[in-house]
């Protein structure tokens, strides 16, 4: 017979499961207003990219509050961006830059149509695996060993004695378990902190954008303003290079990564190769550079709705193009 305590635990777990399932299910229900806005934007504003709330209200036939709510959701999903007042700007779905960097990119490329924008991350995946997750793993192993050392004396009582020594003497025994949990928790926070630092550094240093007319532009130093340039006429070849490690990581990480090599003719006439390391969605970057090189951008219009719905999946994830 299951004890009452265990039965209560099972009931709690089941209750948490069911309540959150229903919550998640309800949160992800279809939003016809958002879909209508996406359709209208794709149909009308794909070329000019800027649109006004009033015009959009007329075209969609939606009330202003409903429209504003839908635009807020699309803004959060990174599909549109508010320029000023009631004016919005459409972002290409393959632009993963921060608002500040997107504005910078648009300004520097003289309002070019940015088809792809993201950051290289040269530290991925080795630094992440070794330092970031390695640190947390070490922290977790230490906490487990300290607990085992405390309860069973295995592998050695020294570990728990050391932990007990650093706790306030009068409450050491009582604080032992909560302190180990605190250590595990702080390990997670520290990993997040390092992760954010690495991303922040990458953002300052490694922006790469592809413009419909300007070609490939990229930062070459910390204080750079996209001075690395490969004009579209100078692109000789582009190649996608996803290593085994990257492929494995892509199965499990939220953002797929890979290297993209671009061979181009320099001003002096000689051919050079540049490698953009650990670019998010590398196949799409490859396709974008290839299509810019060949001047074949028809796909953008043809698959605009699919791409926007994919990007807006936080707003309407159950919708397929």
């Amino acid at each position, binding site marked *: 017979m299951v004890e009452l305590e265990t039965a209560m635990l099972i009931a709690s777990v089941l209750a948490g499961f069911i309540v959150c399932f229903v919550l998640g299910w309800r949160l992800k229900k279809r939003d016809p207003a958002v879909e209508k806005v996406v359709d209208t934007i794709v149909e009308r504003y794909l070329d000019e990219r800027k649109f006004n709330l009033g015009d959009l209200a007329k075209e969609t036939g939606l009330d202003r509050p409903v429209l504003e709510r839908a635009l807020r959701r699309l803004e959060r999903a990174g599909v549109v961006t508010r320029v000023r007042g009631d004016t919005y700007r459409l972002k290409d779905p393959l632009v993963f830059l921060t608002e500040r960097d997107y504005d910078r990119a648009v300004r520097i490329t003289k309002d070019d149509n940015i088809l792809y924008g993201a950051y290289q991350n040269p530290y991925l995946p080795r630094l992440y695996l070794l330092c970031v997750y390695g640190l947390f793993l070490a922290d977790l192993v230490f906490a487990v060993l300290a607990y085992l050392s405390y309860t069973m004396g295995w592998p050695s009582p020294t570990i728990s004695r050391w932990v007990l020594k650093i706790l306030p003497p009068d409450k050491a025994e009582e604080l032992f378990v909560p302190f180990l949990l605190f250590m595990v928790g702080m390990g997670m926070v520290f990993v997040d902190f390092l992760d954010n630092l690495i991303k922040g550094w990458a953002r300052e240093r490694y922006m790469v954008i592809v413009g419909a007319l300007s070609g490939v532009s990229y930062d070459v130093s910390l204080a750079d303003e996209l001075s690395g340039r490969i004009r579209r006429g100078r692109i000789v070849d582009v190649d996608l290079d996803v290593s085994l490690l990257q492929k494995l990581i892509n*199965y499990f990480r939220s953002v*797929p990564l890979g290297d993209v090599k671009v061979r181009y003719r320099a001003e002096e006439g000689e051919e050079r190769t540049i490698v953009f390391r650990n670019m998010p969605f590398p196949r799409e970057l490859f396709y974008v550079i290839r299509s810019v090189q060949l001047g074949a951008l028809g796909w953008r219009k043809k698959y605009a709705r699919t791409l926007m719905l994919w990007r807006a999946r936080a707003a309407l994830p159950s919708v397929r193009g």
Partner: protein
Amino acid sequence: MSEEFMPEILAEVEAGYRLRPATQVGLMLILSLLGLWLIYLAREYYGLPLDVCIIAATVYLALLYPLIIKIKNRFTIALSFAFYGAAMAAIIYWLVRHTFLAPGGLSLEAIALYVIFLEIIAMELFHHLCEEYVFYERDWRSYLLTAVLSAGFFACLYVFLSAYALGFTAIVIAAVLTMMYAWAVLPEKPI
């Protein structure tokens, strides 16, 4: 001519990088069974209590699910939320039953450490399982939630550090760690 450059996008952008859906489900089942079997062995050979086994199994499945299952539809996302609810319910139950309601009660410092752990685990599991709702785009709601959680974190940490009689240093350490925590609550985008 243009279509040939975007074949991946046609299907679904992320699908090209992930394992096939059937493989994802298969791998999830295999790893789940493997984990549950190990927990069972721990119970058999080391006498792990049943409630600890249930909690470990729930948390294990919650950690595993978003790593393996990359299919995004209404059901899989709702299931992800469900695992979050189940894991949090299990952790909260364990904390309440075995610590807060333990005979003799707890000191203020111990309660503070448990609350810190709960705050961190709730936030980290949310990031792990409900990624679509993480505040990557900052607005007043994200700042308000971060402020409330950080204030609680700072207060609890200060209570714990006060046991060392560090004086002003306790405030400095608590403030630095709280800043780290706040930045973890408000994460940078994954790209």
